[in-house]
């Protein structure tokens, strides 16, 4: 690893994200890794390693890593961390940075597109509208324009992968 390949500002960038502040207190003790249920299923997933890489400033390596998306936000790590890092919140901050940098996984992007276009991830059909009518609720249509209005057309459209932040 060459120091020149590291971005010393990366940890501050994470710390500025909501939930990311804790990264500055991590001293790589690995208590989080010891209790991580994802690591039990996927041996390559190691929260201490991800946080360490981030502290070292390995920006691209962390943001492009498919492993960051495996954190299931169960907070097991937060419970054992002696430094109150709130590791899973830090990973959420990292995921947000990665999404803005265009690294969100294709499935996540597809869901975002679906949400932007239809306002929901489940399709609404006749069955749902019959039930709504029974309850005295107005029908909902497949593609209501209001969603775009609420979300703002631009914010709703996810950027394609690879288009940097």
């Amino acid at each position, binding site marked *: 690893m060459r120091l020149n390949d590291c971005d010393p500002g990366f940890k501050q960038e994470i710390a500025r994200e909501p939930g990311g502040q804790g990264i500055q207190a991590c001293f790589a003790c690995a208590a989080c890794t*010891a209790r*991580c249920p994802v690591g039990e299923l996927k041996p390559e997933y190691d929260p201490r390693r991800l946080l360490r890489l981030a502290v070292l400033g390995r920006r691209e390596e962390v943001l492009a890593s498919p492993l960051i998306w495996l954190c299931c936000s169960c907070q097991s790590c937060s419970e054992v961390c002696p430094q109150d890092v709130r590791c899973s919140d830090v990973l959420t901050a990292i995921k947000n940075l990665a999404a803005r940098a265009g690294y969100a996984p294709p499935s996540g992007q597809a869901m975002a597109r679906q949400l932007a276009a239809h306002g929901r991830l489940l399709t609404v059909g006749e069955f749902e509208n019959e039930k709504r009518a029974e309850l005295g609720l107005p029908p909902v249509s497949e593609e209501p324009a209001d969603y775009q209005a609420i979300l703002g057309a631009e914010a709703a459209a996810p950027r394609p992968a690879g288009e940097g932040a």
Partner: protein
Amino acid sequence: MCPLSAQNTPVLIIGGGVAGLTAALELDRRGLPSLLVDKGPRLGGQARGFCCKALVSCARCGACRVGDLLEQVARRPGIQVLTQALPVAAQRQGPGWEVTLIPQPAPEGSAPALAPALAMERPLAQRLVVQAGAVILAVGHQVFDPARKSRLGHGRVPGVISAGQLEQALAQGGLPGQARRIAFIQCVGSRDQVLGRLYCSRVCCGFALRLARLARHLAPESAVTFFHMDVQDYGQAWRAELAEMRADLRFIRAIPGQVRRGQEGPVVAYAGEGGQPQEEEFDLVVLATGLEPPTAAPAFNEMFGLQPGPEGFLAPGAGVLVAGTAAGPRSIAESIEHAALAAAQAGLHLAAGQPAPRGEVAHA
């Protein structure tokens, strides 16, 4: 017995551990008498119960320094000792202090008045007011209670003990039970923001590794695992020892997340080599507990009008000096050096008849 109700002394030393004993000897060397008081029945402090960690040659753990200091103090007529004496009030008297001591009952199971280890241990009989030119606080530290870190199982999972308990067992003859798979967990109660203890306790890496090596020596078929973040550096000689220990013990750079009850012994959950969670059973898990500020720190701050020191330890004030672990984590050898410095500063304070300089000792 002590029939006096008032007494004068150039220096009152509160606390008779290695720091208090050293301060008394150092003052004596400078021709200054002192009164050394301890709330307990015995002098020597916490290091009194430590075991010698030598294998074939001295391990420089410092445990034997206590005996040497006690013997020397017993031979100096200029040092007066009062045990079972608790300071309860203090009042400024010119450049010095007037301190009130009250007798403390002997703890159950000990008979210090009948069988004192050294003739100098004399329990305080009645309330006593001491006029002192300077006061040295050498009240030591508090050991972190590992049960507060409940996920590490102390007091809950059989086979999980503190380093102090292992010291005791070894001082009394040997390893507890048939312990063959032994794990040490470092930094228990230190470097922990959740507990509000951000500092390194400095001594636990040293005593834990020396205890580990002693355990291997006593039971050569045993295997020792050392869970740590990093190992403190104690200088040149230590580095050579550490290299040998690294070859003989299993060093794992991870602090375990949990210790639970297993089939035979405690099961430790930790990050394995590739970074995946892993569980392993041991016979004995030893928690390297850290040093906390003395419990009496707030009381002394109030009594002597002191500003709280770093991390809740004691800091010096007008006519008051602090020696040993009362001022912050340090080893026996470091406490001895620190107490010699405090004694020198007390000497300067007496000579000047005014508050001693706070930082370094000025050239006399």
